């Protein structure tokens, strides 16, 4: 099994607070790896470091064997590393459909000269992007609000839009940051099916932060438990659930 993401001995402190402490994890290619841990364990910080949104103090991050330490998020996007945000982000002044259409990389329209001198090519590519965006928006069940400004969507709908964004381009690894929070149960089922399908059919690798243990149990294998900035234990969901250390960390000495 080859690792697609390798985090090697990463440290990160905010002021005097050591949030990530000599943390090393591996995400196997083609897996749906869960990342859990009590509040303040450093899950989101680690995510932000991998996604290039935060500089790290020391350590290395590899994507498919290439060193991507401290590369900006936009460069990682073009290498196929995508992320969603814990608090759903959207382009509030664009419609849901336009939000999806912002994503696809490497279009000729991005090049100034192409935009002015080959409008035909740009237009046909745009039509292709629009077709794909319409498919995706159908898939995530937001077809009826596709022409609403994204800023007016509900929290759950914005989460779906986040997932939709990762489906617009050919990703290799997707970092999902609490994608289920604020999404209702029915949609959640779709979401899980959807993630599994992307994993199975498109070969996406997922690294998932989640508080919903049902969803972790359904989706993820293996599961990594983070505590105080480093890996406490790693294994299948059964192993994790029966591990006394994990029970201790989650429920405290009282249990």
């Amino acid at each position, binding site marked *: 099994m080859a690792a697609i993401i390798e985090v090697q001995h990463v440290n990160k402190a905010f002021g005097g607070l050591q949030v990530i402490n000599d943390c090393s994890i591996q995400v196997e290619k083609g897996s749906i790896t869960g990342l859990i841990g009590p509040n303040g364990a450093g899950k989101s910080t680690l995510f932000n470091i991998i996604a290039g949104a935060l500089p790290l103090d020391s350590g290395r991050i590899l994507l498919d064997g290439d060193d991507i330490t401290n590369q900006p*998020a936009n*460069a990682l996007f073009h290498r196929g590393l995508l992320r969603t*945000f814990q608090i759903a982000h959207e*382009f*509030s002044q664009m419609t849901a459909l336009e939000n999806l259409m912002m994503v696809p990389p490497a279009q000729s329209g*991005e090049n*100034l000269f192409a*935009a002015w001198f080959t409008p035909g090519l740009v237009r046909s590519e745009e039509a292709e992007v629009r077709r794909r965006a319409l498919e995706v928006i159908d898939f995530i069940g937001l077809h009826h609000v596709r022409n609403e400004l994204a800023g007016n969507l509900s929290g759950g709908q914005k989460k779906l839009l986040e997932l939709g964004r990762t489906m617009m381009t050919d990703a290799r690894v997707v970092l999902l940051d609490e994608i289920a929070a604020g999404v209702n149960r029915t949609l959640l089922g779709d979401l899980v099916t959807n993630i599994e399908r992307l994993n199975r059919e498109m070969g996406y690798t997922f690294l998932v932060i989640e508080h919903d243990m049902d969803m972790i149990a359904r989706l993820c294998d293996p599961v990594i438990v983070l505590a105080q900035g480093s890996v406490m234990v790693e294994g299948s969901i059964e192993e994790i659930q029966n591990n006394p250390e994990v029970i201790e960390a989650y429920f405290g000495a009282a249990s």
Partner: protein
Amino acid sequence: MNELVFFINNVVIAGSVTGSIYAIGAVGVTLIFSIMRFAHFAHGDMMTFGAFMVLLLASAFPGAGAAFGVPAALVLLPVAMALTALLAVGIDRAFYKPLRAHGVKPIVLVIGSLGVTLMLQGLIRLFSGTGGSSLYVDDRKEIFRLALPFEGVRAPVVITEPQLWLFGITLVAVVGLHLFLTRSRLGKAMRAMSDNPDLAQASGINTNTIVAVTWVIAGGLAAIAGTLLSLDVTFKPDLSFFLLLPIFAAAIVGGVGHPFGAVAGGFVVGFAETLAVFNWSVLLRPFRDSLPEWLTQAGNLAFVGTEYKIVVPFFILVVILVWRPTGIFKGKVI
């Protein structure tokens, strides 16, 4: 009818000229704000720099215009725009980018730009001197006098060649910018970044490129505004600096971060200024017989004296911000 011509010359044309200059300046200020979230004080001096480049180029190639039948300054304007864009990107790399990299608060950038203002102004003064000089080096400013085909009209409508160019170029610049922002992918990426920079970056948009493009556009527009202003009056190293406050007022009135708001704001402020200093007693002259004596006796019926012109934009600013706190158009995002 002569009074009407007087009104056209002193309000319609003068207001459009001021309004156009403010509009182009305010669009640049508003774009920079929407992408980088700070008020760029050195904008006036970027305008001056553009005009100064035209002055230098026109002095070096005074015959450049003759081949096209237009003033040399206009033929050389694109070169000056490119140079000003280069200066804008250079200033960003040298002064603002290191500040941004440290994650400073916007106010630090504002103060930094104040420093750039002083530096640019000093540099330009060093080379141009403090006096005025005409951008018409080897050619002559055409003045069109259009007589209206009505009986008893003696005074002509007066409009100069640079004023006509100003209206034309303003229109082209505004329409061009609109198409760029709504149609091209790069323009959409700019809108995306002004909306949500984190998400833009996570969507593969190179935010450094967008910042550079913003400076290129702002620099180019500043060169246009500065040059056309100097063509209309004359080149002086502090001319555009004194327009900075009305330009900011225009950007805020229109809704900061909104290019069309900036255009609207520019014309609102421009016309408000000219209307405020216009002597209304001239327009009342034809109705002399039917008006009360105290009104006809007054020699000057302007709202404020010309020396208080600079107060007008702030008055407008206060009124609009009370009535509509986010500006005429809802601001913040392109």
